[in-house]
């Protein structure tokens, strides 16, 4: 371990209300969250240069995160002060004991957590005290198609299967372990099909696995990224793909999917929600912890949360109540007014919200999917 001493290097002690002197914060984003929150952070820094003098941002795919933090913690030199992550990174870190349970002691420094939307609050419970929900959306599962090519979209899981059967190769979802919409579709099916335990992919998903196996007969291809499915939808080589609210709006804003693409829902679906979390690795100095707490408190205010509307990336985005689109930056409002869908408000209000699987169960579901669905192609 490095030589310790002095409050800047103190990692376990009492976290002061304010850092002794302004700190530099290294933020690692493994969830694409900065697209939503960087303006919030920059806003804080510009107003509180006495707390945070400088922020460095780095980004990486989620899976390698654990290895890196572990290596740093094993060596006693942690230089990542704040991680922005999805459920996967969060729960992997919880399992490995990487995160500092900040909320146990200092929950009262974050008044925003009391205003979470019900869905966001549920997501926050997944995090225990190890992370703070900063953005939230109900996600999916939705189906997406071009109305010109699919005039009569399926309205239930059975119809979807029938459509696939009638149009081999036309239905597509990406490999769940590489794709948000892919895994949302997977986790949403047990609700659609009325499986015995939608939270237990090993023992409670009999109908889901049977359905997927049947569907698999008419699926020619499971791309390795959602982007691929979107491209295939746009170029016509796929007709119906799995989607989420964010994946519906944002690609049409970006122009990678035609604006006229439409979404549909399957009868009796439950939302499988999603969120991004802010977590602090163990081993970060108390000074920096103090700065992070101040920063998070700032991010969980309404004005800041409104920035999470973005261009539909995580639609809607804010984790706390009563954040209206009209509070969002003008650019964001314009994009959502053009590409958003008014029906989302009713859909979100009118369908149950479910939290996603925890990391262990999710991994088990991926594994089974890989073996029985994706890997079944080998023997064909």
């Amino acid at each position, binding site marked *: 371990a*490095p030589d310790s001493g002095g409050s800047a290097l103190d990692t376990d002690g009492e976290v002061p209300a304010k850092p002794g002197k302004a700190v530099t914060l*290294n933020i690692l984003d*493994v*969830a*694409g*969250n900065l*697209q939503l929150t960087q303006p919030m952070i920059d806003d804080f820094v510009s107003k509180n240069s006495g707390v945070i003098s400088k922020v*460095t*941002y*780095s*980004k*990486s*795919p*989620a899976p*390698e995160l654990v*290895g*890196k933090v*572990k*290596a*740093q913690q*094993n*060596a*006693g*030199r942690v*230089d990542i002060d704040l991680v922005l992550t*999805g459920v*996967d990174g969060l729960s992997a870190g919880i399992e490995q004991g990487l995160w500092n349970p900040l909320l146990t002691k200092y929950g009262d420094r974050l008044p925003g957590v009391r205003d979470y939307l019900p869905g966001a609050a549920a997501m926050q419970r997944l995090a225990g005290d190890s992370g703070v929900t900063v953005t939230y959306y109900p996600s999916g599962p939705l189906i997406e198609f071009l109305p010109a090519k699919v005039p009569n979209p399926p309205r239930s899981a059975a119809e979807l299967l029938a459509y696939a059967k009638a149009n081999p190769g036309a239905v597509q979802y990406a490999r769940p372990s*590489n794709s*948000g919409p892919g895994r949302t579709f997977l986790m949403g099916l047990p609700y659609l099909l009325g499986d015995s335990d939608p939270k237990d992919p090993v023992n409670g998903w009999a109908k889901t696995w049977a359905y997927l196996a049947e569907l698999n007969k008419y699926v020619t291809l499971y791309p390795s*990224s*959602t*982007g691929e499915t*979107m*491209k295939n939808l*746009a*170029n*016509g080589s796929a007709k119906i793909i799995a989607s989420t609210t*964010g*994946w519906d709006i*944002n*690609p049409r804003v*970006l*122009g*990678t999917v*035609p604006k006229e693409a439409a979404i549909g829902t399957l009868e009796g679906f439950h939302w499988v929600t999603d969120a991004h979390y802010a977590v602090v690795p163990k081993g970060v100095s108390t000074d920096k912890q103090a700065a992070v707490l101040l920063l998070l408190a700032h991010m969980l205010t309404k004005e800041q949360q409104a920035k999470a509307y973005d261009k539909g*990336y995580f639609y809607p985005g804010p984790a706390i109540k009563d954040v209206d689109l009209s509070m969002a930056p003008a650019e964001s409002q314009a994009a959502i007014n053009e590409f958003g869908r008014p029906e989302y408000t009713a859909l979100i209000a009118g369908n149950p919200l479910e939290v996603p699987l925890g990391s262990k169960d999710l991994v088990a579901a991926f594994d089974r999917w890989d073996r029985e669905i994706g890997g079944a192609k080998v023997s064909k």
Partner: protein
Amino acid sequence: MAARRRIVATPAAWLVWGAVIAFFIVLAGVISSVVVSSFGTRWFDTWLPAGWTTRWYGQSWEEFTLLPVLIVTLEVSALVVGLSLLIGVPAAYVLARRAFPGRQLLYLLFLLPILMPPITYGIPLATVLYKYGFAGNLSGVVLANLVPSVPFVILTMTPFIEQIDPAVERAARMCGASTRQVFVRILAPLLVPGILAASILVLVRTVGMFELTFLTAGPDSQTLVVALYYSMSAAGIRAQQSIDAMAVIYTSMMLILLVLALRFVNPTQLVARVREDGD
């Protein structure tokens, strides 16, 4: 000479040229489809995109603050190439020229880091480097990347060194050249094609090495590939075109490095031979 020209026209030759041309067609298709896409506004079911734009480049450039990343990448690759040659070539020399007890064992030892996927040793390596304060900055990235690079140099260089007539070295020694001078003045120039080949290979591997770089990099020592893998495989929504733009940036940078490398070493020597043919 007439006799030679005839050789060129054999069926075997046609086959070879045919294969080369096919390779080039696929290559051109692969590259240009990415380049075209990276400049396209939207590209659905058509031969060409609907419109043209450079905004994807602007976006990646800003999102990843690519300028410092490019500079770091350059520094890291130059250091790794230089150091791995410095360490690897002398070792390759001894392994190629000398028979001594334990040579095979040593060869195997040098082979291992290339064989083992970084997953096996990446995290403990990063831990060691963090422990001694080498990780989280440029030196860590360089040291970690040297682990597979040094053996790579050794493996590539050994046959090159075997090819050189040892009498030439003896002659240099008789002229009073020390071991170091033999290396710098005689072997190095004769090994230029090999050194160049090895450097290019190491360069490509280093610039493309995600795991070791990510595990040991600090916020200021990320290389381009880290940003690239992020854009490619991180969660979240990203336009295809912006990934294409990143890939084009990555490739252009590699090309520039290649061109730079060829500037420092006379480009004809890439394929030069020591003894020129009579013709």
